[in-house]
């Protein structure tokens, strides 16, 4: 897919794809004593969809507004395509933004809304008309040009807002919670459409969202933010499978976390004694930490196997624990089991419902064994 996106833009071949197209260097933003963005450095590549993911107050929106030019950084610089943007006002930046509220001008028709940006550039009205028709076709809103925003449904408004932000072919498109105002079904559909439009036009996207599912499906790379800092940057699978710390592991998806002490490092990974498990977790990847140090092991619910009988004969081995099923939630495509282990802690396990039919393999209040493979646990030192 990335090869397909590169073909669209002729300059692409000349530039190194890994070179930063947008460079955020040591950017800090303070509002009085409150530090909204704390020394953030970030490189964004040409043509990618970069998702800034974080809870409310994590500073993601402030960072986006600094890229658009609505806020000035207290410290640090922002470079877009090599040009320093520090003193450039929003109306001179090669950047457009799609607002969370869409911010469509209520007193103008769809056509006038979309043409507004071109009009500011002094594009001739015939040219503007053609470009507006073209972009409305791309977002599948042909035929709605004469309507006013209040005559459109939520999904249609979202498309118009996207068209208005894209019609000037910005170097960088900023999207603030682009799908938050849509209902679930429409949101899924729109996600894929957004992806195909982005690939077709080759514009670099920066998306701000608090919805991890949205970030995972849209983003080629994600940046997880917490308390004004970037906590981790990586591909969706990097972040899901190898979270950098407990915050990321917990924020992205659900996870079972066990505190423990490093028992023995070695060539075949690490062993961690977990009091909560009354046993040992064996992770087959090595981790740089001292013997006896306190660490956390994170195991995703879908990576735990649930069975009536002990998966190994004889004495309990590593990477397994006994428990009792307390709750089963049937979700259609999968079921969530809440299993209370002997120490009293609840462990979350998900199983896909592969077979059709009402019979569940395991019932409530049944004693079970939970086990997992040595590649599943992630060892976190912070």
């Amino acid at each position: 897919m990335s090869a397909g996106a590169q073909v669209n833009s002729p300059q692409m071949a000349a530039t190194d794809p890994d070179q930063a197209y947008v460079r955020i260097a040591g950017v800090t933003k303070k509002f009085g004593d409150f530090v909204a963005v704390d020394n953030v450095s970030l490189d964004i590549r040409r043509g990618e969809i970069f998702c800034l993911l974080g809870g409310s107050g994590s500073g993601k929106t402030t960072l986006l507004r600094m890229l658009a030019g609505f806020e000035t950084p207290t410290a640090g610089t922002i470079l877009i395509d090599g040009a320093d943007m520090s003193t450039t006002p929003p109306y001179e930046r090669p950047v457009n933004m799609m607002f969370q509220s869409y911010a469509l001008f209520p007193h103008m028709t769809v056509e006038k809304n979309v043409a507004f940006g071109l009009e500011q550039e002094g594009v001739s009205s015939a040219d503007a008309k053609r470009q507006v028709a073209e972009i409305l076709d791309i977002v599948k809103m042909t035929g709605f040009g004469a309507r006013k925003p209040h005559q459109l449904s939520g999904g249609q408004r979202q498309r118009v807002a996207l068209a208005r932000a894209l019609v000037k072919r910005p170097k960088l498109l900023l999207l603030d919670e682009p799908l938050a105002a849509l209902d679930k079904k429409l949101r899924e559909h729109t996600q894929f459409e957004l992806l195909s439009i982005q690939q077709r036009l080759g514009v670099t996207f920066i998306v701000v969202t608090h919805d991890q599912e949205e970030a995972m499906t849209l983003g080629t790379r994600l940046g997880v933010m917490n308390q004004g800092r970037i906590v981790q940057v990586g591909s969706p699978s990097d972040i899901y499978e190898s979270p950098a710390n407990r915050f990321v592991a917990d924020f992205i998806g659900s996870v079972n976390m066990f505190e423990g002490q490093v028992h023995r490092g070695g060539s075949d990974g690490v062993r961690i004694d977990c009091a909560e498990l009354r046993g040992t977790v064996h992770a087959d990847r090595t981790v740089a930490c001292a013997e006896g140090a306190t660490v956390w092991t994170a195991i995703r619910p879908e990576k735990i196997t649930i069975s009536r009988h002990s998966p190994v004969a004889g004495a309990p081995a590593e990477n397994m624990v006994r428990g009792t099923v307390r709750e089963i939630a049937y979700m259609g495509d999968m079921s969530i089991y809440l299993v209370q282990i002997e120490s009293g802690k609840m462990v979350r396990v998900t199983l896909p419902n592969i077979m059709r039919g009402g019979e569940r393999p395991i019932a409530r209040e049944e004693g079970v064994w939970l086990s997992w493979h040595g590649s599943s646990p992630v060892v976190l030192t912070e």
Partner: protein
Amino acid sequence: MRSRGWFPRIALVLGLIFLYVPIVSMIVFSFNNSRLVTVWDAANSPTLKWYHILVHNGQILSAAWLSIRIALIAATGAVILGTLAGMALARFAAFRGRMLLAGMTTAPIVMPEVITGLSLLLLFVAMEQLIGWPHGVGAVTITLAHITFCMAYVTVVVQSRLTGFDESLEEAAMDLGARPVKVFFRITLPLILPAIASGWLLAFTLSWDDLVITQFVAGPGSSTLPMVIFSKVRFGVTPDINALATIMVLLVATGIAISTVWMRYREKRRERDAQLAAAANL
């Protein structure tokens, strides 16, 4: 609406009587032939005699013309200054002297008119001594005084409209390449225009019928309509005043009727559009 017994009906009828009987009696007596305001001359009424006399009364006509000119200029001036003050108060969260500005702009609303009038007169006299302008009191000082107190009302109206204004609209325009001045004229101004229009109408009405403040800052030869009416009434009410008042009531009622019909129409259209959009969503 469904009736809920005799009490609301009686309240309604009494309310209407209190509000409209004085006006209706005034209108009726404007067609009276008698010189005596309270005696109905059944033999020769109704008649348009007093309307005829009115349109030939130079004093009243010139006063009405002066009042209209002052009200037009004062309302326009008040709208410009009041919009700027309203923007400053709604947009800039904290600046030096914000409280002072907020207090000063709204002071004329709560200040007794006598005090406002007196202080303006003193100001104008002092200004003439210091900088030689304005030359005495007259139409100019009346207009300035009216701008001063009307501005307060415009400020309040515009400020409340801007408080509910989605600022991302302005940011979006700026993001699309419009400079701040252009953003104001293309986005902000059209959207707050209804508030500005109602502020202008309010200011026009206030200026049109102000008497107390005007008395202080008016000079010889600059009598506004309320001043003429008031001075005439002091020497006894003549029926041509009734005729004048009837014309004014008629104009106001027409204006209200037109705006009501127009608002209804807009409301209905908006409802229909919303239904269409909802249907398209399915």
